[in-house]
């Protein structure tokens, strides 16, 4: 076992870096100071950051948030799986797969272009209004379905970015040991692809966490909607801050954990330079 000392050669630009960091902190501090001492701050604070309203709205928002979390978990699992299937189909080579690829490309293009709200309205109000036999009318069901349909299109493109960032020689190499296209994708390309786009996947994770709230247009009372109700009742925006704090309590730890984990994984696999 070898005693490991820290690298000793000084990194270039360390002084510039410190200056940059220092001045950022000073500027942010200054802005905060100007805001907090401004004459109108008490009024703004009262309407956006009131401790009283924070406590008042917290229980309702938290209850609604719990519904968000449940919808989120179901949706995210479906999205990650369905999107991967879409991305894999899109990455198949050869003319035989052209029709399948074309279907997926059309799906992704159209769905991404449709505002999520319209999709939710269309599925959540439109489909049940058709009164078809055996088709669910639950707005939760259709709200989550709309989220899955929409987010899958975006997430599939994130996966595709990952797949295409894996060098062609890896595909060739995988095929050469006799793997089929799908096997090559599954065992060789996709595992590397996912590692390559984890930060972008996490983007989807974080923003879905907030977008599940959109099912509120269907009358579902989730967290952001409770904040809405509170705001409409009291004209105070602090309830939204409550929602933001709840979101942050989940998303920040998840982001930090993922970064830590991928970094560890990378260290285990790769040579590290300075």
């Amino acid at each position: 076992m070898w005693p490991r000392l820290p690298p000793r050669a000084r990194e270039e630009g360390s002084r510039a870096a410190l200056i940059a960091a220092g001045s950022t902190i000073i500027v942010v501090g200054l802005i905060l100071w100007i805001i907090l001492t401004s004459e109108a701050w008490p009024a703004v604070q009262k309407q956006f950051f009131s401790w009283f309203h924070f406590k008042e709205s917290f229980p309702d928002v938290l209850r609604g948030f719990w519904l968000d979390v449940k919808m989120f978990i179901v949706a995210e699992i479906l999205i990650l799986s369905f999107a991967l299937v879409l991305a894999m189909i899109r990455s198949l080579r050869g003319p035989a797969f052209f029709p399948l690829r074309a279907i997926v490309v059309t799906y992704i293009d159209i769905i991404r272009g449709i505002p999520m709200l319209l999709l939710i309205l269309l599925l959540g109000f439109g489909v049940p209004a058709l009164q078809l036999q055996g088709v669910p009318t639950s707005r939760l069901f259709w709200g989550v379905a709309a989220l899955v349909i929409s987010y899958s299109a975006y997430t599939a493109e994130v996966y595709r970015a990952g797949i295409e960032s894996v060098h062609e020689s890896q595909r060739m190499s995988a095929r050469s040991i006799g793997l089929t296209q799908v096997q090559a994708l599954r065992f060789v390309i996709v595992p590397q692809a996912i590692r390559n786009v984890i930060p972008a996947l996490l983007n989807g994770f974080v923003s879905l966490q907030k977008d599940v709230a959109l099912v509120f247009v269907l009358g579902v009372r989730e967290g952001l909607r409770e904040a809405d109700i509170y705001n409409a009742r009291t004209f105070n925006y602090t309830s939204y801050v409550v929602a933001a704090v709840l979101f942050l309590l989940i998303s920040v730890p998840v982001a930090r954990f993922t970064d830590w984990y991928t970094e560890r994984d990378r260290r285990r696999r790769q040579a590290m330079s300075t």
Partner: protein
Amino acid sequence: MSSPKLEIKDVSKAFDEKVVLENVDLEVNLHDVVCLIGSSGSGKSTLLKCINLLVPIDGGDIVLDGQAITDAGVNPNQVRQRMGIVFQAFNLFPHMKVIDNITLGPRKVHGVGQEEAEETARTLLGQFGLLDKADEYPDRLSGGQQQRVAIVRALAHEPELMLLDEVTSALDPELIAEVLNVIRDLKASGMTMLIATHEMGFARDVADQVCFLDAGRILEQAPPDQLFSEPEQQRTRQFLQRIVEAGRL
């Protein structure tokens, strides 16, 4: 000897406008070792990739055991399962440990059980002096170690035909001797091989036939003794002379 294991008939290949292989004809008999020699850029690697159906050819036929594998209707996967190829740039899977790199093919393609595949892999790794690297990731291996893993990966496959692209170039001389022995053993066990190499000593030592490729065309094919001592073509003579100058023959 009966009909050849592998026949390359009038094969041509161009990338965009650049012709890389031009009317290549070549036969590899069962249990034979054929070495491809020729300058950098002459098309050796491309020819090997064409045989593995990794690069589509533009004209001609490639025939394996009498079956034209470049025909429409042939499943290229089944063809590839019968060959092993080692790339000049190794192309190991960086997200898998060495052992998983090697067992992936046998497990997924040939349906070998995990344990059996690992056992075979470890035996092969041992032969190449890499047993202690089985649980390491490729990026943490030295160049020579990576190349040996790539050879093991191709062999784990139990192919009928091996395509080797400069497998000894990143090896240190000690290991070259070992790999040569492995190849000799393989040959003794009846493996048919097509090897692109810059090592004339190696070619002379191991090859039944040596093929001289120049600018995408096969200029000369003969047993090593004949080709190295009495080359027919002017261009071959030139090539060999430069090798002697480089102290490599």
